[in-house]
C-alpha cells in the first residue's frame, strides 16, 4: 500500500510539472503580446521583457496621438476603435436576426408536422458543412448586384456583411432543436387544451424555458461573426468600413510593419471577447458538447 501511494504521489508531481510546462508553452504568445504592447517602438530590441515600458502603443490603439520624449507626435495609424465598433454592430445585428430565425425554425422542426421536414433537416445538416468561404465569388457578385437596387446592401456596406452572415443559420437550428427536444411538451399540450395557438405556445411556454440555449447560441453566433474574416474581407474595402478582423491584418504588412501597435490593438480588442467567452464558458461548453454529441 505504501509503495502504491508513493507511486501515486510521484505520478501527480510528474503530471503537475508537465501541465505547468505545457501551460507555459500555451501562454507564451499571450504573455509575449502583452509585453510587446508596452515596449517602445515597433521592432524587437533583443529582450523579451521591455527595459523601458512605454504606453505609446496603447495611446495609439485608443485613437489618441502619442508624443514621445523628443516631442515628435505620432498619429494613430488605424482607426481601431471604429473597427471594433463596426465589428460589434455587424455581429450584434446579424446575431439577433440569426437567433430569431433559428429559434422559430428550430421550433417548427422540433414540434410541428409538415411535408419534407426530414428532407429539410438532412439538407440543413449537409449544407452547414459548406462554409461561405467556398462561394465567395458568388457572394461578391450577389451583393454587387443587390447594391444596384438596395444601396445599403451593396459592396463596402456593413449591411451587406450583416446579411451575408445569415447563411450560418443551419448549425444553430440543429443546436436549438436538440435543446427543444429535451423539453417535455406536456406544458405546451396543456396550453393547446386551453386554446392557445402554436404561436402562443411557442412564445409563452417554450421560449421562457429555453433561455439557456438562446444565450449559448447568442454568444456562439456573436463570437463567430466578430471573428469572421473571409466574407468581410471580400465585401468591405474602405478603411472606415472595415471590421476588426479585416483591419487588424493591415498592421503586419511587410511594407509597414507595426508590431508594437498591433500588440496593443490586439490586447485591447481581444480582451473583451475572450472575457465574455471565459465568463460564459460553462454554458458554451455544455452547448457544444450537447450539440456536438447529438450531431
Amino acid at each position, binding site marked *: 500500500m505504501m509503495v502504491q501511494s508513493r507511486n*501515486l504521489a510521484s505520478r*501527480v508531481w510528474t503530471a503537475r510539472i*508537465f*501541465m505547468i510546462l505545457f*501551460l507555459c508553452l*500555451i501562454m507564451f504568445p499571450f504573455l*509575449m*503580446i502583452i509585453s*510587446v504592447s508596452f515596449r517602445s517602438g515597433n521592432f*524587437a530590441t*533583443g529582450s*523579451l521583457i521591455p527595459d523601458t515600458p512605454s504606453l505609446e502603443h496603447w495611446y495609439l490603439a485608443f485613437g489618441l496621438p502619442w508624443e514621445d520624449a523628443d516631442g515628435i507626435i505620432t498619429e494613430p495609424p488605424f482607426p481601431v476603435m471604429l473597427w471594433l465598433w463596426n465589428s460589434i454592430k455587424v455581429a450584434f445585428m446579424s446575431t439577433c436576426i440569426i437567433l430569431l430565425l*433559428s429559434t*422559430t*425554425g428550430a*421550433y*417548427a422542426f422540433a414540434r*410541428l408536422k409538415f411535408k419534407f421536414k426530414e428532407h*429539410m433537416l*438532412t439538407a*440543413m445538416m449537409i*449544407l452547414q458543412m459548406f*462554409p461561405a*468561404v*467556398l*462561394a*465567395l*465569388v*458568388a*457572394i461578391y*457578385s*450577389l451583393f454587387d*448586384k443587390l447594391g444596384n437596387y*438596395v444601396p445599403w446592401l451593396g459592396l463596402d456596406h456593413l449591411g451587406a456583411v450583416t446579411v451575408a452572415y445569415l*447563411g450560418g*443559420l443551419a448549425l444553430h437550428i440543429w443546436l436549438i432543436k436538440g435543446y427543444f427536444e429535451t423539453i417535455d411538451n406536456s406544458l405546451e399540450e396543456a396550453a393547446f387544451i386551453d386554446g392557445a395557438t402554436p404561436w402562443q405556445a*411557442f412564445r409563452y411556454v417554450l421560449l421562457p424555458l429555453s433561455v439557456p440555449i438562446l444565450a449559448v447560441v447568442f454568444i456562439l453566433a456573436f*463570437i463567430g461573426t*466578430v*471573428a469572421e*474574416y*473571409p466574407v468581410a474581407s*471580400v465585401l468591405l474595402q474602405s478603411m472606415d468600413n472595415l471590421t476588426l478582423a479585416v483591419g*487588424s*491584418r493591415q498592421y*503586419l504588412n511587410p511594407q509597414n*510593419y507595426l*508590431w508594437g501597435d498591433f*500588440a496593443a490593438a*490586439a490586447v485591447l*480588442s*481581444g480582451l473583451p*471577447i*475572450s472575457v465574455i*467567452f*471565459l465568463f460564459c464558458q460553462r454554458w458554451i461548453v455544455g452547448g*457544444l458538447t450537447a450539440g*456536438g*454529441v447529438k*450531431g
Partner: protein
Amino acid sequence: MAAATEQPAGSPLKWLAWGTIAAIDLILLYGVTLMYAQGETAFALVIVLLVCSGTWVFISGRGYNYRYVYPALLGVTTFIVFPLIYTINVAFTNYSSNNLLPLERVKEILLSKTYRVEGESYPFMVFQSKDQYRVVFTPTPKNYLVSEPFTEAAEPGLLPAKLQSDIPKGKELAFRETIKLRQLLKTQDIKLPSGLQLSMTSLRKFGPMLDIYRDTGSNILEDVRNGNKLIPDFSVGHFREVPPDYNGDLSQRETVGPGFVVYSGWDNFTRVITDPGIQGPFLQIFIWTIIFSLLSVVFTLIIGLLMACLVQWEPLKGNGVYRLLLILPYAVPAFISILIFRGLFNQNFGEINTLLNMLFGVQPEWFSNEFLAKTMVVIVNTWLGYPYMMILCIGLLKSIPGDLYEASAIDGATPWQNLTKITVPLIIKPLIPLLIASFAFNFNNLVLIALLTGGGPNIIGATVPAGATDILVSYTFRMAFGQYGQDYGLASAIATFIFLIVGTIAWVNLRVTKRMVE
C-alpha cells in the same frame, strides 16, 4: 404576422398582417420590375418565386406550419444554396478581370466611344457667374447657345446646351482667363439641341464629335470611319476587328475593347488538368490540404485527449484553473491569435527567433522555407484547435463509468493501459463524426492560411499564384481576389471540385451519425 389566419375575419390584427404582407410584396415587385428592366431576368424570376411562396405561406392556413421555417430556409437558400449553384455556373464561364462585363455592357462602352471630326468648328466664350461657368456659342448674332453650368470641381461629362436670345447671366471671361480653364474645359463636352456633340479642339474653338461605332444589328458594330466591322468572337469573349467583306478566320484578327463573359464549357476544368502551370501546383496543394487537415485532426486530438484526461484526473488538484487556462486559446478570436503568431514567428523581428537565437543561436526562416512554413502552420493550428477537442473529450470522459477504472486499478493497470484499453475504445465511436467535422473544417480553414502565411512561400513555375502552404480554399481565394488578374472562372472550377469533396465528407458523416443513432 403568424396570427394572420388565427384571428376572426375582420379583426384589426388580421388586416394589419395582410397590409404588411401586401406592402412588402409591393416593394419587392417594384424591385422585380426594375431588375427585369435592367435585363436581370434570372434574378427577377427568383424574387417573383420567393414573393409568391412567401405570400402563400403567410396567408394560407395550410401553409401555417411553414411560417416558422420559411424565413430560416430563405436565409439558408439565399446565402448558401444560391451561391453554391452560382459558383458552379461561373465555373463554366470565362468570368475574370479581363472578361468582366456582359456582352450588352461591352457593346454600350464601345458605342459610347467618340472621335473628333476635322473641319467645321465653332468659336466659344465662357461666362462666369459666381463659381459657375457656362460655355456659350453665337451661331447668329443675338442668338446664344448656352450650356448648363459647371464648376471647377466638375467631373468629366456631357452638358446639354439651349438656344436663347438673351445674353447669358454673368460676365464674359477674357481670353487669358479662358486659357487658364483649358484643362477643365477639355473634360466637358457640349451637346447641341440638334444632337451634335462638341468638344474643345483648340484654345478658341469647339469642334464636333461623332460616335466611332454604329450598331448594325445582330451584335456587329461598324466603324463609321473606315467601314471595318467589330464581330463578337464567342469562343474567347472579345470583339475582333475585321475589314469590310472579310470572310476569313476570325481568330487571327486583333481583339478590340474589354472582353465579355461567355460560357466556355469545360475549359476551366481542362486547364486544371492540362496546363502544367496549374496542374502541378494544384496536385501539390491538394495533397498538402489533405495532409494538413489530417495532421491537424490527429495532433489536436492527441493533445486534447491527453489534457482532458489530466484535467479530469481527481488527484491533480486545481483542475478548474488548469481547465480555464487550457481553454484560453479557444477563447481568443482566431484572427487575433493567428496574427500574433505571424508576428512572433517573424524572421528578423519575431520573439520566437529572438528566443531561439539566445538559446541555440539559430534563426529559422519560418516564412520562406517550405518545410518550416508547413511546420509552423501545423503548430499554430494545433495550438488553436486542441481546446475544442479537449472540451469534447471532457464531455465524453464524464460519461465513462468510474468503476471501470477502479476495476483496472485493482488489476494493477498502468495509465497507458487505462487509456488504450478503456478510455479510447469507449469514446472513439461518438468521437468519429466530430473528427470528420473537424477534418472538413480544417480542409476549408482559409482564415489560418490567409492570415498566417498568405499561402507563401510561392511555388515556382505556377501560372496562377500558388504557395507551398496554400490549401485548396486559399488557392481559389487568391485566384479570385488576389492582386494579380482575378480569374473567377478558374477559381470557381476548383471551388466546384471542393464542393464535391466536402459533399462526400458531409454524406459520409451523415451515414456515420445515422448508424450511431441506430
